């Protein structure tokens, strides 16, 4: 009973933020519905991109959170080098990322052969391959945001939890992660937005079509050079609105972690 009441209080205290979140999502859905009603060529590529971005978001969130915890461990050998390698997709050309993906996960690589042996087909030119390509670009953004979240947790809370008998895992899941939640969720949103718009690495590793459908960003190019400027415009508009909405929500969440937030 106390728990339910506490959750209700927490929800009521956050009603402004919840309303903002709901309005943002409603605007995104409204724009997609409007654009769909105007031409109807948007949904399949957008749906493919949303599915890739969503799975990529879950993947990068799990891997990124684990990697962030590892990078925050001061005794980790080569910590700065691993940090730099994790961040390098931010500055490398997407084609270079695509090339590395083919070299490391393609059919000639050890990982690619192992994948094929387990799943009966190659990773390259598949939906899963597109998820991996999109995740590579998202990972540094997720790691950076999750790190801000984890570092914003006052060490006195973790010390207090330890003196109350909590081991490292319990401290992490009951204290650190809930208090870092705004940063973790913001990281997920940034990762989602980045994965949604991935072009170069996806094109290189997963190809221009997945089961005959291009991703949203590839569809814009297809439309434009196929003399369907209206299609390119509609697709661009939808992807811009989704991207702005995600970044707006990520900004709101990140601001919550700062002291004296406005």
């Amino acid at each position, binding site marked *: 009973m106390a728990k339910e009441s506490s959750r209700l209080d927490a929800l009521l205290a956050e009603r402004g933020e919840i309303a903002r979140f709901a309005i943002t999502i409603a605007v995104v859905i409204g724009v997609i519905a409007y654009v769909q009603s105007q031409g109807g060529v948007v949904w399949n590529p957008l749906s493919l991109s949303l599915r890739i971005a969503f799975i990529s978001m879950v993947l990068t969130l799990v891997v990124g959170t684990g990697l962030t915890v590892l990078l925050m461990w001061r005794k980790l050998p080569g910590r700065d080098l691993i940090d730099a390698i994790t961040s390098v997709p931010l500055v490398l050309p997407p084609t270079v990322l695509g090339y590395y993906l083919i070299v490391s996960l393609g059919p000639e690589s050890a990982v690619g052969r192992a994948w094929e042996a387990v799943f009966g087909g190659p990773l390259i030119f598949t939906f899963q391959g597109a998820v991996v390509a999109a995740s590579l670009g998202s990972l540094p953004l997720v790691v950076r945001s999750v790190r801000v979240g984890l570092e914003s947790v006052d060490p*006195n809370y973790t010390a207090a939890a330890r003196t109350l008998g909590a081991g490292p895992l319990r401290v992490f899941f009951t204290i650190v992660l809930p208090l870092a939640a705004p940063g973790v969720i913001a990281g997920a949103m940034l990762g989602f937005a980045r994965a949604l718009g991935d072009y170069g690495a996806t094109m290189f590793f997963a190809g221009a079509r997945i089961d005959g459908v291009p991703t949203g960003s590839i569809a814009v190019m297809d439309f434009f050079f196929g003399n369907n400027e209206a299609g390119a415009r509609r697709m661009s508009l939808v992807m811009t609105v989704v991207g702005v909405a995600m970044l707006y929500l990520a900004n709101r969440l990140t601001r919550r972690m700062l002291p004296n937030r406005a």
Partner: protein
Amino acid sequence: MPDLVAKITLARSSDFALDVELACPHGITCIMGPSGSGKSTILAVLAGLQTPDRGRVAVGNHVWLDRDQGIDVPVHQRRLSYVFQGLALFPHMNAVHNVEYGMHDTPRAERTAKALALLERVGVGHLAKRRPRTFSGGEAQRVALARALARSPELVLLDEPFSALDRDLRAQLVSLVRELSRELTVPIVHVTHSIAEARQLADQIVRLDKGKVVARGKPAEVLAGVTSLEE
């Protein structure tokens, strides 16, 4: 009842070294001294949050730290309670969940009943479902004390818990801590700057200066004629 026996040597910087021996029977031992004399560092070492260069910490028959023997029991396995200077009440949990946190090995129903009883005991039962950001200074102190008591500790550490309170509230809480000390019968190590607070609370006083014990004994002996710690 277990006594606390500790010997701690820790060089914090080139011009400061902590070198103290403590023997604290059950009751309240107040550690006093000017800022930077090493008071809070002693608590951190006793809790296991900081490792000294050399030393031994034992509560009754339980050796928590012995650098010579290579013993260093992790913080979460030391049966202690620590009220931090800033209290560190978990902001995402209500008062009951804060108090329950240290009782995870107790069955759930029993845990909640005990947490509610402890909150009542320290006079803040009405705060059970509220979160820390809605507490006043005095209320937060009481919830922090309830949380500290919930573990049935062998040692209680209080790091200037009343420093931010006005005189009336401080007097109320001093009297509450005295009552709790009689009920608990474990060593309570209380760090304070306040001579008045130490006179009211302490069974034993340890005075520190520059990392060394300069006086120890009954309050009347150690604090006779003392008006300021910053000498």
